[in-house]
């Protein structure tokens, strides 16, 4: 297992404070660091009071959509007599993103505490944590933590003697990116193929096994104990730019960068500081060409856009992209953009659940057209064809997988058209064999 980097002075470690400290993984170690106090505290409050505190904090979903967490919890029906479920989305598989993995590897009890608090707030007795199949180490660590927390009475039939039943069950995925989409995840837990569901009904109305369900990302839930311990007002104050983006955010930085890793920064931190100060900038002699800031599913930013961007939900939108899951893929001047856009399109073609025609056909056809361009068989009309296909793939399907495939293609053509032209005009050697 890779060891995390020492925290940089410009970081604001809240969730990542104990990354790299193996003792924090154990129940006793976690308690020694103040763990489970948040859960004990809220078990004396009403669920409504917990939800209010989360609303005050301004915490928003860290999985990509940025939906306000307190509001999401408040949409759950109250005392309707049906079982309620909490699902923790630990299916992290958005290319460029590797933050939830670190949370589970280093602070499993922090996540469990967040799950227990959320379960209490929404009236759920059961929480399923859906961990992607490839995360073998995080699964083992979480499994051990669940066992320990249950044995010590933090979870189970009578959490900390409160009379509340909070049970956590780990559910292992089996290799399907689409199961990170929340309704596909529900189907997958139910023993079905991971096909996203049409909404409405929303999960809060009819989710897992048809019951009211809340789905939250690992990082969101891991932030919850900090919010309840230090207060919503404190969390809300962690904001350097737009007050709608509060708290800290784990940014996964990868690609052509000196010091890749997870960096926890206050919302609104300039991307330039992250890239050049915290991560040590580009490799010697190289310059920044592009950044995909929110995991691979968001539009590609040019170097100029990236260097002028603030890292919060609104800041990245202002530069034409999205914060998403904050998996930042950094690309320097050696990058063949056409090749990497093709590689991303291939990813989405592979991961499409094949339910919607626009996605099933669109991801496959865009991949093939990009392959032809890379093989030196491209034509001028391919630009329009790719854009037309992308248009058909955007906003027209059950989930956003096909939109995610279109985003790098459209932004890639807009910002790096000359690289496509070089292949089409024969100015560049084909990168792939003829197809």
């Amino acid at each position, binding site marked *: 297992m890779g060891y995390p980097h020492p925290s940089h002075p410009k970081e604001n470690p809240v969730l990542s404070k104990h990354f790299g400290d193996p003792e924090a993984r154990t129940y006793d170690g976690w308690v020694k660091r103040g763990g489970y106090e948040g859960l004990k505290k809220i078990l004396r409050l009403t669920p409504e009071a917990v939800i209010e505190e989360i609303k005050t904090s301004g915490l928003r979903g860290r999985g990509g959509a940025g939906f306000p967490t307190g509001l999401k919890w408040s949409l759950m029906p109250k005392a309707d007599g049906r079982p309620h479920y909490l699902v923790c989305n630990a299916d992290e*598989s958005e290319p460029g993103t590797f933050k939830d993995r670190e949370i589970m590897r280093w602070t499993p009890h922090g996540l469990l505490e967040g799950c227990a608090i959320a379960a209490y707030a929404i009236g759920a007795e059961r929480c399923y944590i859906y961990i992607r199949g*490839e995360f073998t180490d995080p699964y083992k660590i979480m499994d051990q933590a669940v066992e320990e927390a249950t044995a010590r009475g933090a979870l189970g039939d009578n959490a900390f003697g409160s009379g509340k039943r909070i049970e956590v069950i780990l559910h292992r*995925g089996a*290799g399907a990116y689409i199961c990170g989409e929340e309704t596909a995840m529900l189907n997958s837990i139910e*023993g079905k*193929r991971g096909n996203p569901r049409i909404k409405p009904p929303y999960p809060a109305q009819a989710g897992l096994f048809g019951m009211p369900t809340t789905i939250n990302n690992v990082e969101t839930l891991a932030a919850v104990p900090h919010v309840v311990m230090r207060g919503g007002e404190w969390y809300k104050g962690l904001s350097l730019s737009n007050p709608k983006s509060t708290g800290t955010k784990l940014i996964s930085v990868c690609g052509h960068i000196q010091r890749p890793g997870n960096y926890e920064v206050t919302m609104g931190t300039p991307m330039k500081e992250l890239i050049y100060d915290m991560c040590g900038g580009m490799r010697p002699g190289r310059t920044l060409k592009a950044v995909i800031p929110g995991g691979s599913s968001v539009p590609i930013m040019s170097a100029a856009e990236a260097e002028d961007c603030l890292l919060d939900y609104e800041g990245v939108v202002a530069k034409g992209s999205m914060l998403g899951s904050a998996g930042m893929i950094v690309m320097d001047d050696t990058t063949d953009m056409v090749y990497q856009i093709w590689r991303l399109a291939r990813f989405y073609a*592979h991961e499409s659940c094949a339910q919607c025609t626009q996605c099933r056909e669109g991801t*496959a056809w865009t991949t093939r057209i990009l392959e032809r361009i890379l093989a030196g068989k491209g034509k001028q009309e391919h630009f329009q064809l790719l854009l037309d296909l992308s248009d058909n793939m955007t906003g027209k399907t059950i989930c956003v997988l096909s939109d995610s495939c279109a985003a790098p293609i459209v932004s890639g053509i807009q910002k790096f058209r000359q690289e496509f032209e070089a292949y089409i005009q024969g100015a560049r050697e084909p990168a792939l064999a003829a197809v």
Partner: protein
Amino acid sequence: MSATAGQGGSGAGAAAGAHRGMSEHGSAHGGKGTETAPYERVFKGERLARLEWLFTKYPTKQACLLPALWLVQEARGWISEPAIGEVAEVLDLTPAYVKGVVTFYTMYHTHPVGRHFIQVCTTSPCNICGAEDVMKALLRETGCGDLGATSPDGRFTVIEVECLGACGFATPILVDDDFIEGVTPEKVSGILQRYQ
């Protein structure tokens, strides 16, 4: 329903399965998904107890499908047609339905694989950090030659996978359940020696 009833369930999921299997479960596997010895049940003794424990964790038997398939793969290394039939039987599902689910998820093997199964990430973040060179080194040094093929000595199968979720530690590979980060072509032979 007998344990071998799964033989008839090859239709469902074929379209999505073929689509999803673009890179890793392609032609290299051919039609080798057969088991010749008499079928021995997976769910007996400890594994049956494990399955019954699972029944207490979900409100429906169907929801135990993914964990039950993991138990089969853990026991047998892959999921054969008779095994699909057995899973269908213990969960009150049809073999066709179970097969549709098995083929949707790429981590379930519908064919026998080498003693050690290697998955290498080549998605963009790792790709720009040299993942394709790692993949080529793995294919060369295992003797597998092609993606999805098993080495002549039966020791390894190598496949290319999409994002393993460790992009900052490029290039990650999974050897069986061992997650190994920061692999370079130079490190490949040393890693392989640990897996006989």
